[in-house]
């Protein structure tokens, strides 16, 4: 069995609050320097930078898990990941269908741009990506799993945009593949508050919007090799695969 260091929650310049320094090339460069083996690309309500980061990362020996950080109707943030570019594109269509048509104002929220390999802007996303979808938590979960993806509520302990802030507490029968905690708490602390979440796998990630914080939250995956199926198995503690949260610090 091998150990892989994963940061599964990273924003690119496509996210409205993503720093302009978060170009796909810069993210891959920083991740390689910090010894990250698996990188999750999770822009707000968009999957469009995943494929390019994936391509650039392959050259550096980094595996990219492509997905998005979805804002549900309740304004709870959830990480979603897909196995291949086909299901990723199908989920993008779902996002396009359900994102309200509110225009981004770069003055307030920053630019939302898709870059190419030469760091040229190939697309500017006009719709404000931090809006909530017109889909509730359970509906998003159902769609992600219908497409064979992974569904992980983000930073569930945080006072904003989390299950606990928006829904008061973690729902009892949530169909999640794991739960993400921020660096401000531990799984033990969350289980003490909500004993019924004891059986879930917990991950910690950086939620980086800036290169400085990339890798500030790391989950170690103990598994054979790096692919979607192995990651799913590790999250579900199958076939001796497992995960551990690394002590924080860059």
């Amino acid at each position, binding site marked *: 069995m091998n150990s892989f260091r994963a940061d599964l929650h990273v924003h690119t310049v496509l996210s409205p609050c993503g720093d302009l320094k978060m170009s796909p090339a810069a993210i891959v460069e920083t991740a390689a320097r910090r010894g990250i083996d698996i990188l999750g690309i999770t822009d707000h309500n968009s999957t469009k930078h995943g494929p390019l980061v994936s391509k650039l990362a392959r050259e550096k020996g980094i595996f990219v898990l492509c997905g998005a950080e979805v804002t549900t109707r*309740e304004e709870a943030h959830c990480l979603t990941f897909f196995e291949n570019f086909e299901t990723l594109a199908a989920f993008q269509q779902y996002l396009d269908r359900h994102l309200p048509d509110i225009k981004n104002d770069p003055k307030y929220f920053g630019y939302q741009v898709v870059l190419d390999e030469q760091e040229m802007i190939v697309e500017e996303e006009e719709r404000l990506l931090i809006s909530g979808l017109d889909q509730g938590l*359970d509906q998003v979960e159902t769609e992600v799993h219908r497409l064979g993806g992974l569904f992980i509520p983000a930073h569930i302990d945080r006072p904003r945009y989390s299950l606990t802030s928006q829904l008061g507490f973690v729902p009892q029968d949530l169909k999640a593949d794991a739960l993400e905690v921020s660096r401000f708490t531990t799984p033990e602390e969350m289980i003490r508050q909500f004993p019924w979440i004891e059986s879930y796998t917990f991950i910690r990630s950086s939620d980086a919007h800036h290169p400085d914080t990339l890798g500030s939250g790391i989950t170690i995956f103990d598994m054979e090799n790096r692919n979607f199926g192995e990651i799913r198995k590790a999250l579900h503690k199958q076939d001796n695969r497992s995960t551990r949260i690394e002590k924080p610090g860059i």
Partner: protein
Amino acid sequence: MMTISDIAQKLSLKVLSGQGGINREVTGGYVSDLLSDVMGHAQAGHIWITLQTHKNVMAIASLKDLAAVILVSSHQPNEDTAMQSNEEEIPVLGTDLSAFEISGKLYEILKT
């Protein structure tokens, strides 16, 4: 003291679920869409005005022994929310009005 039934009649609210609880008495109201805020501040007997439809709404209504929930702007309860409302006999009421409008009307009839 006014019951849910009286209030539903006066404000033309639709009883969407939890019919069994329409004789609950109302002591006041609370308006919030942040469920943790409601858990912290709403009082037993309050009628809760919100646009949230997730079933955690009913868990909190039950925990705090609220009289009923009003869903604003034509929002409908999720299926499991309605089911729990029926079981707990805590009504979910519906209105086409916004939270601002229905709060104003409710305040008017409760303060007298």
